[in-house]
């Protein structure tokens, strides 16, 4: 499971386009486990593992979630908002915002899909950080 990096520098944001925009992770061909974000070495197989880049389907279920009512900097306008742990269809868990869904309709186990959204902007004159969020499938 990854920690959501709340604020990232412009170079870091740029380096992570693949995982952030397109859910690119990897899979170990030896043990079959999938990883997001991509790993450098398979934790199960070590050097004997063989990691291959894969694109996740963007489908998953809500593993857990919490409603944020005291926002982080830059998220004031979105309050209240929901942060969920999403279990991807392919296995890995990922933390992300669940949007476009009434809070009362968000429950553990519901199916979600990824959507491309604005995550935050540095400032009115700064870079806009885009990435994936999650919506409950109607």
């Amino acid at each position: 499971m990854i920690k959501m990096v709340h604020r990232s520098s412009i170079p870091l944001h740029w380096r992570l386009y693949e995982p952030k925009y397109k859910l690119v992770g990897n899979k170990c061909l030896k043990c079959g486990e999938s990883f997001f974000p991509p790993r450098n070495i398979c934790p199960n197989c070590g050097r004997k593992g063989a990691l291959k880049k894969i694109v996740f389907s963007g489908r998953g279920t809500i593993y857990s979630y919490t409603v944020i009512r005291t926002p982080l900097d830059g998220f004031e306008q979105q309050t209240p908002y929901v942060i969920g742990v999403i279990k991807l269809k392919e296995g890995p868990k990922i933390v992300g915002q669940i949007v476009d869904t009434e809070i009362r309709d968000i429950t553990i186990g519901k199916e979600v899909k990824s959507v491309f959204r604005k995550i935050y902007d540095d400032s009115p004159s700064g870079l806009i950080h885009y990435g994936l969020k999650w919506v409950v499938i109607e």
Partner: protein
Amino acid sequence: MLGIVGYGAYIPKYRIKTAEIAKIWGKNPKEIEKGLLIKEKSVPGIDEDTITIAVEAGQNALARSGINPKDIGALFIGSESHPYAVKPSGTVVAEALNINRELRLADMEFACKAGTAAMQIILSMVKAGDIKYGMAIGADTSQGRPGDALEYSAAAGGAAFIIGKDPAAIIEDTYSFTTDTPDFWRREGENYPKHGARFTGEPSYFRHIIQATKGLLNKVGRNIEEYDYVVFHQPNGKFPVKAMKYFKVPKEKYLPGLVVDRIGNCYSGSSPIGLTAVLDIANEGDKILLTSYGSGAGSDSFSIIVTKRLKEIRDKAKKTEYYIERKQYISYGVYTKFRKKLKI
């Protein structure tokens, strides 16, 4: 034969009713609804903008086309609400859609007709053999000044078209008509547009829609009666209907592409979304006439003929009617928050 090989629409799920806006400004809701023939308009979520709308519409177009995004050689996005003044929306959209980096790309701007202008450019590039496929998108999250007449209509949504060989709908020909008409503008750094009221309507919308449509009909040598569907730009519910009456187009031919009463004016996405709604239902051999309008001013007119491929592709993505009917109403208070009119 060249034309549309994939298409897709996207409309944010939030709606505000005309009556809810009218109430805030002490106007008679019935009068405004009757005047504009708009019941409600779409509102982008707080995390949606032209780029995110273009990505959603583009994903739907890719799904329908079945082509590899790496085969797309050009991307043009038309909008009057590009999130950056300098840094093309297309750069982010291309990265998100995994489009080839050997790519011709620029953002377009021409009020409400930048999307159709993008379609024409892509068509020409494909025709010239410079690219195999290209994607044209019209998308907007337009804003009207609070209390201004445009606040009732300025909405959000977009449509994407992939143009290439072996199309689901042939683009037979296009025709454009452009003049310098001061009906609507927005200066750099200004949040809201201004309109030259005296130039709204006859000298702008009607003149350009009529001239472009007539020019196209003349160019392809057809009468408007030969078309099964007609879509005009829809800044409100009244103007397109009046223009249809001028051309004596019967209701059954224009209602399928008339979406403004339920979602408002999606600017660069307006007539393109109307076209997607028609493509969702049209049959092989059907002829579609599309004419956009952009203030400033100009119109692009398209003659489109549906092929048998359309039936094979249209169920591969969510239809436009799904996005129109998928909705959540919000109050004027939430609307001001979503549109960042609140200073925190």
